[in-house]
């Protein structure tokens, strides 16, 4: 097959980030995609942070338990709520992307989106309440 030539595109946004997060005239699915990217970056950062934090365990009980007590402060709990949103959203939107991408229910992706993200939101609210109350 022939090669594709690059274009010189005056209208193209200078940064590709602009294209992803340019919601004007776009539908809910683009917001879903942009949010998936945002949560992906957030979760990646968290993953590394989490691994670093876990090194406290190697320092024995004092190290870890002092971390646990910090982690129960209100500011930390708020961060946890944000994290929880990222996790459940990325999980459930990810299920849709994976299923649709393998050709499963690809004709019903909108319903799938509302259903799964609906479940995610319910879990998020329940989780957030638990974080603050327990």
């Amino acid at each position: 097959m022939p090669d594709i030539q690059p274009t010189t595109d005056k209208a193209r946004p200078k940064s590709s980030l602009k294209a992803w997060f340019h919601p004007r005239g776009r539908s809910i699915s683009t917001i879903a995609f942009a949010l998936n990217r945002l949560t992906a970056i957030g979760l990646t950062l968290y993953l590394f942070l989490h691994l670093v934090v876990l090194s406290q365990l190697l320092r024995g009980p004092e190290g870890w338990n002092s971390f646990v007590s910090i982690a129960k402060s209100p500011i930390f709990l708020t961060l946890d709520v944000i994290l929880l949103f990222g996790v459940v959203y990325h999980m459930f939107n990810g299920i849709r992307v994976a299923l649709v991408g393998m050709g499963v229910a690809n004709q019903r992706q909108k319903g799938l989106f509302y259903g799964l993200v609906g479940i995610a939101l319910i879990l998020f609210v329940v989780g957030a309440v638990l974080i603050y109350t327990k």
Partner: protein
Amino acid sequence: MDSTMSRRSPEQMAARRDRSGSVWLVQAFSGLILVALLGIHMIAHHYIVEGGLRDYQQVLDYVSNPIIFTLEVLFVILGVTHSMLGVRSIIGDMRPSAGTLRVANWVLIIAGALAIGYGIYLAVALQQLAG
């Protein structure tokens, strides 16, 4: 007006069969498995535990269970792989030059390998601490 010339080589322009299909499948399946693993992780660490976080001894007890140990190791491997592939895909959409992409690939491979190695080391060490 900005005119964005592509900085990429002709080889990069060609669309030809490559491994991206397999990469995508790895991403999709690792994601689906992570949904299950993360579900277990969340419930075990934060839901059934009084106060939402295990203290030191509880963590050690938990990891000493061989099934949990295996799941946690699997979690580290798949989680790191999934996130490194995700970051690669984001970088790929930012019009990198061939050189940038190559460097990014290596940085991600090394970072991923270190993270996985460290995660497994951590799990093994904790299991030994638990005796």
